[in-house]
């Protein structure tokens, strides 16, 4: 992060062309790539933009607030000579900002001389600390089988109408650092939440604000809001502004920062819109070829570094268009993030909360934060066993739908029973239920005990001896 104070800059009058949120400005000299501009319309009102491309005597400018009301003749543009920076300060916690980082809660501008570039800079891989500390969320489908670690980026893949906001709020509210289980991680000086809304309805932002208020965390939260009726192009900046503050808090103020970004699908649409207006060659579904790199430039701002005690943990929320996990947004997100929690329609219809579809869900870092000395020795194998058994249940269900349940073998019938119980007792829990990791492991063993011992080849024999509670008396 570098310090920059905004300088004067040259003013230019020649707007050559306006197309959607894109404006071609002619006549500037020494314009730099990615520079911020200030645009003055005919009535003297200001809006901001940034340079997407520069040529000899022209610059392509993206106008954050959109070009509505701008005219070719009446508009002047001032090039500010710097990339987009926002102020960063600890006192920004407890405050609300718009999508570009300007306060909208009636309070003053943050009092600081620290300004940081919203683009950030790549963390040097040699400077990272590999995440190992697990966060107990009190939710079995996360702690048990898709464990979240400090410094991990773990998105929620959801769909319209599903309770992803509740789940995210529950995670934020219940998160405690495993080793100090009991001490809520959302309390105390060293914890902060940065929340960024992109194109979501006011209700959603309100829901989160209420939830933060109820858990008493509001003074530790900074909110960056670009709502559904705010200019779409600003959405390109919103998550970056949020992450810029998060980086400052984590890496310079040693805080553990939880970043919630919602809804990244709206972000992607804004990016696609700009790309289309510029006539760029699309890759899939009209999204630009650089979507992967663009998303990575935000998701990779998660982690821990050796020079700081703090961390950034990211929970981006994405609604999958048509519930399609192969859509470019969830697909490329999944390729970058360290796993994904997938919510499913069927479970949601069945009244299961949280409707986490376990099989496609994954925490890539889980293996490094659980097991002996961290959670419990049997945890990794227990988790693999639950997955294997539940996967088998799906096959059995398919078979049952063809030949009928009565025709199934005795073992297969047990799998059906296991599957039902798994969804109702393990996946399902209430919005306020905060399960300890021991409780989650206990429920899992109880369910595995529905199956014959012989089916449990992922856990070892000692573990079966110790935890199996079924009536199977063989070997």
């Amino acid at each position: 992060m570098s310090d920059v104070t905004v300088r004067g800059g040259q003013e230019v009058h020649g707007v050559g062309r306006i197309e959607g949120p894109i404006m071609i400005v002619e006549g500037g000299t020494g314009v730099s790539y990615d520079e911020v501009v200030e645009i003055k319309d005919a009535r003297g009102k200001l809006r901001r933009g940034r340079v997407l491309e520069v040529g000899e005597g022209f610059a392509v400018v993206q106008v954050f607030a959109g070009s509505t009301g701008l005219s070719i003749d009446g508009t002047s543009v001032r090039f500010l000579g710097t990339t987009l920076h926002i102020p960063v300060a600890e006192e920004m916690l407890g405050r609300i900002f718009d999508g570009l980082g300007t306060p909208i809660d009636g309070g003053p501008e943050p009092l600081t001389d620290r300004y940081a570039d919203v683009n950030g800079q790549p963390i040097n891989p040699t400077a990272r600390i590999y995440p190992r500390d697990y966060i107990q969320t009190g939710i079995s489908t996360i702690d048990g089988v898709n464990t979240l670690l400090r410094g991990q980026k773990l998105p929620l893949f959801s769909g319209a109408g599903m309770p992803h906001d509740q789940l995210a709020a529950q995670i934020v509210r219940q998160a405690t650092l495993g080793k100090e289980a009991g001490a809520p991680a959302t309390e105390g000086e060293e914890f902060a939440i940065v929340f960024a809304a992109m194109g979501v309805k006011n209700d959603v932002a309100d829901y989160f604000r209420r939830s933060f208020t109820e858990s008493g965390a509001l003074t530790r939260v900074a909110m960056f809001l670009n709502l559904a009726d705010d200019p779409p192009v600003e959405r390109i900046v919103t998550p970056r502004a949020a992450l810029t503050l998060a980086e400052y808090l984590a890496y310079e103020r040693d805080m553990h920062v939880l970043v919630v970004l919602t809804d990244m699908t709206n972000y992607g649409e804004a990016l696609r819109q700009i790309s289309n207006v510029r006539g760029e060659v699309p890759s899939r579904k009209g999204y630009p070829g650089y979507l992967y790199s663009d998303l990575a430039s935000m998701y990779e701002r998660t982690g821990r570094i050796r020079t700081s005690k703090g961390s950034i943990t990211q929970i981006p929320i994405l609604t999958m268009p048509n519930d399609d996990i192969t859509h470019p947004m969830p697909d490329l997100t999944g390729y970058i993030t360290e796993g994904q929690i997938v919510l499913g329609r069927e479970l949601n219809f069945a009244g299961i909360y949280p409707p986490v579809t376990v099989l496609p869900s994954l925490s890539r870092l889980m293996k490094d934060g659980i097991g002996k000395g961290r959670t419990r020795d049997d945890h990794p194998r227990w988790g693999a066993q639950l997955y294997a058994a539940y996967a088998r249940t799906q096959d059995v269900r398919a078979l049952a739908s063809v030949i009928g349940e009565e025709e199934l073998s005795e073992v297969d019938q047990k799998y059906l029973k296991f599957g039902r119980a798994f969804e109702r007792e393990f996946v399902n829990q209430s919005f306020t239920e905060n399960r300890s990791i021991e409780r989650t492991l206990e429920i899992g063993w109880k369910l595995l005990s529905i199956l014959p011992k012989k089916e449990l080849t992922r856990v070892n024999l000692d573990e079966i001896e110790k935890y199996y509670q079924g009536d199977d008396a063989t070997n």
Partner: protein
Amino acid sequence: MSEEVGKITWISGPVVRARGSRHVGMLELVEVGEDHLVGEVIGLKGDQMTIQVYEETAGMQTGAPIYGTGLPLSVELGPGLIQSIYDGVQRPLPLIEEAMGSFINRGARFDPISREKKWKYTPKVKVGDEVTGGAILGVAMETDTFEHRVMLNPDDSGTITWVAEAGEYTVNDPIAKLKMGKEEKTVTMLQRWPVRRARPFVNRRGANIPLITGQRILDTFFPVAKGGAAGIPGPFGSGKTVTQHSIAKWADAEVIVYIGCGERGNEMTEVLQEFPHLIDPRSGRPLMERTVLIANTSNMPVAAREASIYTGITIAEYYRDMGYHVALMADSTSRWAEALREVSGRLEEMPAEEGYPAYLAGRLAEFYERAGYVNNLNGSQGSVSIVGAVSPPGGDFSEPVTQHTKRFIRCFWALDKSLASARHFPAINWLDSYSEYVGDVADWWQEKVGKDWLGMRNRAMELLSEESRLSQIVKLVGPDALPFTERMVLETTRLIREGILQQNATEAVDAYSSIEKQIGLLELVLYFHDRGMAIVKRGAPISLIHDLPVVDAIIRAKSTVPNEELSKLDDIRKQVDEQMGQLDAEYRS
């Protein structure tokens, strides 16, 4: 020093255009702007040049200068590469961190290879020797045990006129002098090589020795030969990276080049933190002491990501030239292809499929062609094996990168999302994968383990394809409709799947299987099958076989029998004999 050759006229992300001298060469390395950012000329038209810039261009202005260097993009080669971690254009990341802190800033310039460090050097030539390109002039100890063979640049040859005596030298100290025609040339341990030019060799040898990875589904079922090329495509979360890490840890190569190309920072950190503490089972030394890392993660500049593949393969070829077996991992080649696409898009080139440039296939071919088991210029033999991960959008293998890659590799490890969901790892689908090296490496196996590897492997494959046919029927009518002989096949294939194919990379005993253990497990399972089949044919119900306690023992053998205690497999075989023997007796009458 470099001279100014033009001024910037246009900037769009990593691509800039400039106007100036007509003497700038195609693929010449240039320095861009007042910050001297590294760039490479990728297009020339009259006095216009197009440059891809390996660093972030934000803040750069039109009118800023371009400086020529007269050289193509090159890597430095010499002792000190091993245990290093570089970005895509060979900038040493630890030095960048030292100078700039935790974040990578622009304009960093550091020597990729230390100029101060001294190496213990012993000459291998004497005055008067005639030497040609690639000749081994001496050896430097790159680690306590790794012998770095210092070679004459492939393009040089002549008569040795002076040799440094054995001692400690830096890479800048002269180690020999050479008369080349009228000129005398001083040779040091350091050389440069343009990354886009394959290093020369005499000819290719047959690739008939497997690269042993310790991964059962690879070595036993879909082996890659030393000097071969394999592709590992799969949707996100299916196991590309874990498989590549496993190969990097356990493969019987002498040097590993691992390229993190457009992937996660944490994954490189994991290697950096883990490899120094893992011991190579063959050399007894930390794995880091045979590893070179190239990390150009997804958030680092995209043009340098494009270069990272070439930086890596050139380093791999250099160690091959010394006579070593080198294995190169590229995770992920799709991100490299996307970097090509991104730059191509900014140039407004005519796209072919899915926005990729028409030359995608050509670039992939060039890369995979740089794999090979070769006779080197200096008479030694060495190999570069390539394992390239492919990340198809939506997991759809019909996309261009997967399809073109398939044309240039001979070994295809197809990852499968549903296997990964069921936590069957490695999630390599045994029906969709293939290796064209199977026949080539059969003799080697026969010689090493003295057993009919090919026959056993093929039998297991037949059983697995039989299983897939039978499970279609089971899906329609349930297993009860199958005759016991066919259900016996299903009993056995379960053992193959769970006891052999599944391998847990995170479990100490299971992570690496010696070839003896691999063949032992396979033999055991097939033995179980033969005995069981004989009994079932005599009318014994399948449930009796299914319920034998030894079934559990076979499935668990992968993690209960360490590589050093293979006699335990014989104990399990005895259990098969005892338990099957009883059944056999019962149903003999």
